[in-house]
């Protein structure tokens, strides 16, 4: 099995706020991420696909195809958007790295026909990221 990773970047705004909690609780739990007018990040997304290289093309999947999937599913949906208000799949969820990574997995997984989605890693900053795997798959692809 070979793993192939493609990286893209997008910029988006968000706010962490749970309407079921009081203003004080929101402030205590989310800190400055609760600023009422929101804030933004340059997100880096790494998408890893696993599979066997095709004997004819030598490819796990065609990178052009992956690029188009990422453009259609992620860039058009999230780039230069407000994640709370403009991304239907995140409605009602706090748009943390954990939740965004899961939504991106759910968007990409059915679209990848060659190979199989192995990992979605979403960086909110160079020092903070979330990984999403299929349950049972280890970080190094062990199952």
């Amino acid at each position, binding site marked *: 099995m070979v793993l192939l990773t493609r990286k893209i970047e997008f910029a988006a705004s968000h706010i962490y706020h749970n309407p079921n909690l009081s203003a004080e609780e929101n402030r205590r739990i989310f800190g400055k991420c609760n600023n009422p007018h929101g804030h933004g990040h340059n997100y880096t997304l790494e998408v890893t696909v696993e599979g066997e290289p095709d004997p004819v093309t030598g490819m796990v999947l065609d990178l052009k195809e992956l690029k188009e999937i990422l453009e259609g599913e992620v860039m058009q949906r999230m780039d230069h958007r407000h994640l709370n208000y403009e991304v239907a799949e995140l409605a009602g969820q706090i748009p943390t790295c954990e939740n965004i990574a899961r939504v991106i997995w759910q968007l990409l997984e059915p679209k990848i026909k060659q190979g199989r989605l192995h990992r979605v890693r979403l960086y909110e900053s160079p*020092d903070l*990221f979330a990984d999403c795997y299929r349950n*049972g798959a280890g970080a190094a692809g062990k199952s």
Partner: protein
Amino acid sequence: MSDALKIELGRRYRFSASHRLHTPQLSEEENWRVFGKCNNPHGHGHNYVLEVSMSGDVDPATGMIANLVDLDAFVERQVLEEFDHKSLNEDVPAFREKVPTTENLCIEIYQRLRSFPQAKLERIRVQETGNNSFEYSGENLEGNRS
């Protein structure tokens, strides 16, 4: 559907420390042969990057596996306070007996972080320089899964 997926939170920290690779179990010549310039008697240092991966359920109320404020404070207290701008050989008791290679550093840090109450420690990755890094997931640790 989300039960079919596993989410991990990854966080990076930085610390700078000195070390010397040397073991009293070998002769001076053997130490030099095995460890090379890392055996220099006065030690040397690195800017280490520590990557901590935690797994757990994402709390629907917060969208988080663990609150970063809690994780940062825990890592600060358990590791960074004792390691940053220190001599690993002299200032960290575990390395009075063990050679402070980055392999051993990973194991030591794993042991210090596995008691984090809000999430499960999955993995430690330590980058010693931009060109080498080491990972440890708790294998063969006493009292842990193999």
